[in-house]
């Protein structure tokens, strides 16, 4: 056993993949795409945040949440509230019956900024809220469910119901939330016009940078003992419990992390797209987010990023050229990824490309810690 050399090799190999992605996102895409396409890529990347979170909580933790859209939306709404308040200064809204509040509130005869909007005047509060609000909701749901050992299918259905509740609430409380239209017409971030091409480029790079922060953080989690405990939990939950671990708190933890990632994605989405609406919160977008992760490979962090990029790119190009076929393609993708290649792109890569690559390098097979030979197995539940 020559441990150090093995680890060194793994590190370099994995580093290579990360570097490749960084190169692709930070150099190749900006060179190849025009501002319009690059902005699209930026939007897709915000979904990659959700997908990475899902790798943690679904792929490794075995917790399938069909409510990630809620967290994405919460992060997005927090950011949107800040931007909206900025664009609703008393001067800019002087023609309203109550100047200084967002336009949709004025239309709904709200005459005073609601208390929960007040703190969003502060940017630092907003940044904290983008992380904290999804995390707190995830914590409450997680504690309630996991401490009572609700898991698997039941958890999925309940999170789905929560997505439905939150959507109806946002739409129904339009005086406070902007209703079905969402919070729109966001123009500046602390005086900086976020709609200009330069701003979009900066936001794109911000998005890429934060994506790597999240990727490395997730990698750190999975590389630690916590990652192995997650795998162990998915396999034999009871055994973990009888090894002295409070299983629920681990589940709550990854669920919260996944929620925070989704929240960051949502906030970046708002910044790049310029508005937030309940149509990203509901059941359908939430399930689509799961498929991004599944296509990439539910056990691969990098796969999740590629999955989010590819599915969204396919969606855009399909709906541009064959709108009728899009739903068929998406449906086939769901079925195919489950039936034919449950490990997604990452699995295909490992099965078909790695041996070939190995052959080229004439190196024996190596086990890599994080992006290891994990495969989707039958659930015991």
């Amino acid at each position: 056993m020559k441990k150090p050399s093995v680890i060194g090799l793994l590190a370099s190999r994995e580093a290579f993949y990360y570097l490749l992605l960084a190169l692709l996102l930070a150099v190749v895409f900006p060179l190849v795409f025009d501002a319009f396409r690059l902005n699209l890529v930026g939007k897709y990347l915000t979904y990659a945040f959700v997908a990475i979170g899902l790798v943690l909580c679904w792929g490794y933790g075995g917790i399938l949440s069909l409510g990630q859209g809620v967290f994405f939306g919460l992060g997005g709404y927090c950011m949107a509230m800040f931007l909206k308040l900025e664009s609703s200064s008393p001067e800019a809204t002087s023609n309203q019956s109550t100047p200084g509040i967002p336009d949709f509130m004025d239309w709904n005869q709200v005459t005073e900024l609601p208390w929960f909007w007040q703190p969003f005047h502060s940017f630092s509060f907003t940044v904290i809220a983008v992380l904290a609000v999804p995390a707190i909701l995830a914590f409450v749901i997680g504690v309630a469910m996991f401490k009572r050992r609700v898991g698997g299918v039941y958890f999925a259905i309940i999170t789905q119901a929560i997505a439905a509740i939150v959507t109806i609430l946002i739409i129904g409380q339009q005086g406070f939330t902007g209703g079905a239209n969402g919070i729109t017409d966001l123009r500046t971030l602390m005086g900086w016009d976020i709609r200009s091409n330069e701003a979009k480029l900066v936001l794109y790079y911000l998005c890429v940078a934060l994506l790597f922060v999240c990727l490395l953080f997730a990698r750190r989690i999975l590389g630690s003992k916590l990652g192995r405990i997650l795998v162990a939990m998915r396999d034999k939950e009871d055994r973990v419990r009888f090894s002295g671990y409070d299983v629920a708190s681990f589940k709550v933890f990854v669920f919260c992390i996944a929620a925070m990632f989704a929240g960051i994605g949502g906030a970046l989405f708002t910044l790049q797209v310029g508005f937030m609406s309940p149509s990203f919160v509901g059941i359908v977008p939430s399930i689509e987010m799961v498929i991004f992760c599944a296509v990439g490979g539910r056990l691969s962090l990098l796969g999740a990023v590629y999955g989010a990029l590819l599915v969204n790119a396919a969606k855009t190009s399909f709906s541009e050229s064959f709108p009728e076929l899009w739903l068929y393609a998406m449906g086939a993708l769901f079925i195919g990824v489950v039936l034919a290649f449950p490990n997604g792109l990452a699995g295909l890569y490992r099965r078909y490309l790695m041996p070939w690559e190995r052959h080229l390098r004439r190196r024996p097979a190596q086990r890599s810690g994080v992006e290891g030979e994990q495969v989707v197995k039958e659930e015991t539940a």
Partner: protein
Amino acid sequence: MKTRTTLFFSRPRRRLLAGLIALPAVLALSTPLMAAKPATSEVNSTGLAVTDDTVKVGILHSITGTMAISETGSVQAEKLAIEQINAQGGVLGRKIEFIQEDGASDWPTFAEKSRKLLVNDKAAAVFGCWTSASRKAVLPVFEQYNGMLYYPTFYEGLEQSPNVIYTGQEATQQILAGIDWVVREKGAKSFYLLGSDYIWPRTSNKIARKHIEKKGLKVVGEEYYPLGHTQFNSVINKIKLKKPDVIYAIVVGGSNVAFYKQLKAAGIDLTEEKPLLLTISVTEDEILGIGGGNVQGAYASMKYFQSLDNANNDAFVKAFKERWGDDIVIGDVTQAAYLGPWLWKAAVEKAGSFDIDKVRAASPGIELTTAPEGYVRIHENHHLWSKTRIGHAKANGQYEVVYETKELMEPNPFPEGYK
């Protein structure tokens, strides 16, 4: 060709009414072949997609997703108008080429696609959007890149963008005349307001409530159900208890079907008019899904019905059916969408240029005597002066027009109390 002549010469006497403002446009229209085509550099100083022979415009609606049902009619109408304009020689001697994009019932997609149309395709005008949410999503894009959007849906108002021409009615136009009519003609004293839960029904009901209460009449109930809701028994029970004279219903989409079927099943026969039902959301398009038998007897207040009896409309309905099939029905929004390309053409020709700023400046005052609904004129606030009509739903899915305002209703997107 036949269509063109019918449309164009249908109302010769109106041309006098059209006045001086429309004259240049009319001249440009009637002499497309004789007039020397203005040079491209003259009519396009801002780099729009205009060549010596063509001009590109965008059509931006949902082809897929939940909204595709509603937006199909608008797409068909816009295409028909473009084809007719091309058959007449186009705009400033240039054929219109349209680029159609799918908003996919997804608001960011609308924003994306509008950016594509304006930035990549340099579309001279965009005809599109249906829901308020999609319009709100594209609005900043149109303002940023200075595009021109022709928006066809009747909507809640509270908006007036220099980059949008609203060819449908805003809420007050639709609502006030309808309520005045039921009060005057049917002696209505109490109203039950009901709607799907989103911005248009809520805002519209607020306007309605204000108007009703100003008249000293009573609103006995007001409530909203989530989009797609299919169980209306409880609210129907409440209606039975409160016994309003008028059910004022702004239910949309699939919920409509459930609502009218359950209303009928619960023994509220709309033809008896006890209570009477007045809606602003059920066009002929919706009746297809609900079934004519279920809405028979309801009243709708909007600016256009397919059964409207005038020569413009006869020609329009005929052309529409020839182009898109005999079974097709045409609702209010479809007609409004049809106006878009025509209003744009008139404005371009009045301005003598495709430049957005010149088209915008030329727009107020543009009138269309050939409109299927009769006559419309663009107001300073970018909405249309138009008449409001009351239709009485018949079993065959058509409305019979029972009333029409004498004067054009002035668009007032920011009614008192909403500013």
